[in-house]
């Protein structure tokens, strides 16, 4: 699945965005200013001097005026690890256009935002319990390589998100901003995955990618439904009543994900596969979203 490169206008738009982190990510120096004070040149606040503070941080001008010792604190410059985990199981290949195309398009945009923000970006495909990860990238120049990585994968195999995630964490144990792009059609317990990640200190954003045909069943008479991943089939009569009941089941499924997100503190957004990348990005911008506008 070749991924078409973004246009200059898209890139300019993505440059105006920044990742909205809600947790601190200790590690090596970086350009991302975390919520903790550190050694960057970005002033944070004045604080009363305490024994042990570095005397170089004392503001002597302020001492001359107030005869009290204050030290300057600076925002800590952080390395933010952005992990983009894309579900590449066979279910992501349905329908046309594929949900996988929406997922990798969105992942590419997020990767660019991360690279422009000076973060370490690592993309990976999860399928069949395996993890196929790209090398970490921290410069904008690495974006074409990431694009190529994201665009060369087709949807196939079973969805075993938990096993795939464990593989990914084995590659890099540091805390990260984990973005999971998946249709979450996992026969296991997919809602436990983000909860576990949150407990481990990761910031987790689940982007639930669904197509129109996943959300509603159209009246079609006698139909043999075939599972894309398992090949299992089921005979049903798609009439109005069945369609209503299916819509109810889907609604309940989404509601359970929303409640799980609130309960465990991870971000959750439903992404429509039919929308464009920019429309989906816009959906992620906000105070409680994954992205924020600069300035």
């Amino acid at each position: 699945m070749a991924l078409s490169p973004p246009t200059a206008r898209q890139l300019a738009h993505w440059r105006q965005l920044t990742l909205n982190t809600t947790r601190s990510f200790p590690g090596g120096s970086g350009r991302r200013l975390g919520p903790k004070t550190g050694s960057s040149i970005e002033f944070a606040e004045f604080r009363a001097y305490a024994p042990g503070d570095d005397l170089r941080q004392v503001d002597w001008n302020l001492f001359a005026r107030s005869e009290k010792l204050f030290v300057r604190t600076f925002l800590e410059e952080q390395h933010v690890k952005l992990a983009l985990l894309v579900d590449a199981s066979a279910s992501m290949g349905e329908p046309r256009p594929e949900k996988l195309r929406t997922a990798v398009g969105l992942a590419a945009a997020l990767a660019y935002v991360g690279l422009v923000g000076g973060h370490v970006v690592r993309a990976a495909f999860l399928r069949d319990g395996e993890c196929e990860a790209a090398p970490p990238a921290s410069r904008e120049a690495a974006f074409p390589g990431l694009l190529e990585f994201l665009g060369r994968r087709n949807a196939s195999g079973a969805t075993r998100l938990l096993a795939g995630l464990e593989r990914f964490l084995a590659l890099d144990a540091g805390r990260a901003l984990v973005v999971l792009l998946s249709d979450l059609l996992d026969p296991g317990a997919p809602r436990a995955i983000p909860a576990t990640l949150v407990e481990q200190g990761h910031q987790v954003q689940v982007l639930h990618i669904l197509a129109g045909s996943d959300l509603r069943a159209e009246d079609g008479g006698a139909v043999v439904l075939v599972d894309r991943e398992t090949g299992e089939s089921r005979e049903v009569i798609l009439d109005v009543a069945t369609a209503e009941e299916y819509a109810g089941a889907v609604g309940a499924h989404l509601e359970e994900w929303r409640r799980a997100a609130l309960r465990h503190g991870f971000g959750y957004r439903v992404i429509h596969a039919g929308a464009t990348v920019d429309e989906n990005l816009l959906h992620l911008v906000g105070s409680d979203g994954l992205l924020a506008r600069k300035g």
Partner: protein
Amino acid sequence: MAHPWMLLALLLLPAYWWMRRLEARPRRRVVSSLLLWTGVPARREAPVQEWERRTTLVLWLELAALAGAILAIAGPRLPGSAAARTRVVYLDRSASLLTREADGRTRGDRLRAALLAWISARPATERFRILTGAGEDGGEMDAAAARDFVSAHGPLARGESLVEGVAAAWTVARAAGGDPPVVATDRAPEKGEAAHWISRGAPSANAGIVGCVAERRGEALDLLATVRNASAGARRVAVSAAGVTVDLRLAAGAEERAVLTLAWKDAAAAGPCLAVRLEPGDELPADDLAWLAFPAPPPTVWRLGPDNPALDRALAAVFGGVRRAEAIPADATGLFVFDRTAPERLPAGPAIVIAAPRDVSGWCTIRPGPRPAGARTVRDPASPLLRHAHLEWARVDRLLEAVFPPGAAHVLVECEGVPLVAWTGPEGAPALWIGFDVAWTGAGGSSDWAQLPGFPIFFANLAREWGLGLAGTAAPACVSPGTPVRLPPGATVRAGAGPSLPAARVWRAPEAGCWRVASPGGVQTVAASLLSRAETDNGGADVERLPTEPEGGRGERREAWRGLAALALLALCGARVVESRRSK
């Protein structure tokens, strides 16, 4: 089965069944995962077998609707319940059925023989109700009684209205169950006639005398009979009058004149009417057309104008003779006829002015004068003088105002909005305005219309109505202008003693198809009926359009059609209901 070949369409049913079965098979649809379908309650997971069962029910209903429609179009006939059926028969007994044909039998004989044969071929359980044109209604009867009834009711020497008789038969037939009546007559059915029909002798109505005028030459009389052959083939026609017969051989559509020169007998003994007998022959049946005109002793009729033999002959036929004059004689009395000539002065007596349109502006020099005190306007449509007059009176009034000032003259005949005949009478004399239907004969116009059939009669009626006792004799009697008269066989309009009937006047009798003849001996009614020239040719063949057994009649077939159509509709509705329930 009206259209058995439509049954071939039933072969489409298996193809339709196979096509619908293919369509009803469940389709394969790939979904991302069946996980979300676990939320659908199990009761909605209907097996495909249930779907197929429902589809099969719909399919069978559709097939039933299709088959019902095909069978309905094929028009099946159900076996008739002959025991419950009553056939209504109308038996024509009019005088024309007395006509003898080539084999010596009358039309009535042939017609009744055919009708009896048909009755004998009907099922023994069938009943009949026979009506006649004479008003008889034999009531319901079995076949034997029906045969007796037909045998006992032969033609009568009088006319009947076939149209009214058929209408009455239809009324009775509808009340008896709806089967069309059987009409037995000697006339061909009209186009679109739905009744069953049996006819004998109809072709003979296609030739006849369309005009007959008499011209006296001293003691002799020339009788001009115009005969038209309206049939599709050549026809030999014999025209007889007073024992003199002229044979004519007429091509199809031809019209010729037969001139019969008769010896003029004692005028006083013969009276004003000439004995004219139209004999029914093998090829000229009695119900042919005749224009009758009866000459009278010479009156004083002056005609002024250029030569016009046709007009002279017409005037002579009516008034017995005519005098030509270049100008109005000084002391002349009588009737003055100006033919395309402007009168230099108003004559003392009544006058008729005939003008062609091109001459109107030239001769219209009649001086305006007061309207005659006794002038009266005849506009009563019932007036015999206005019969067949299709004039627009409003237009005539305008013309009178424009061309003829009130009282100066009165239009008698006009054509294309131009007055052709104007009447001016002496002051105080009665005057009439009469419109007359005139055929236009040429772009420049002429007075040829004066020799058209009916024109002499118009003059005759005119003179009689005015009471023009010319030359001291009574005005000749004749039929109404423009009215063809069909004489029954043996009907004789004859003057003098003996079996002949001195017809002083003929007029329409209240009875349908009858004419009344007045003579010195009293008034008698003869059977006749009008015959339109547009009457269709029967083609020379007898008509035999009778219901047959055991297929049954039209009414029964329609009933079967309706039943099948209703079945098809019901099946279609059933299919719709099942489908709508399935989709809910």
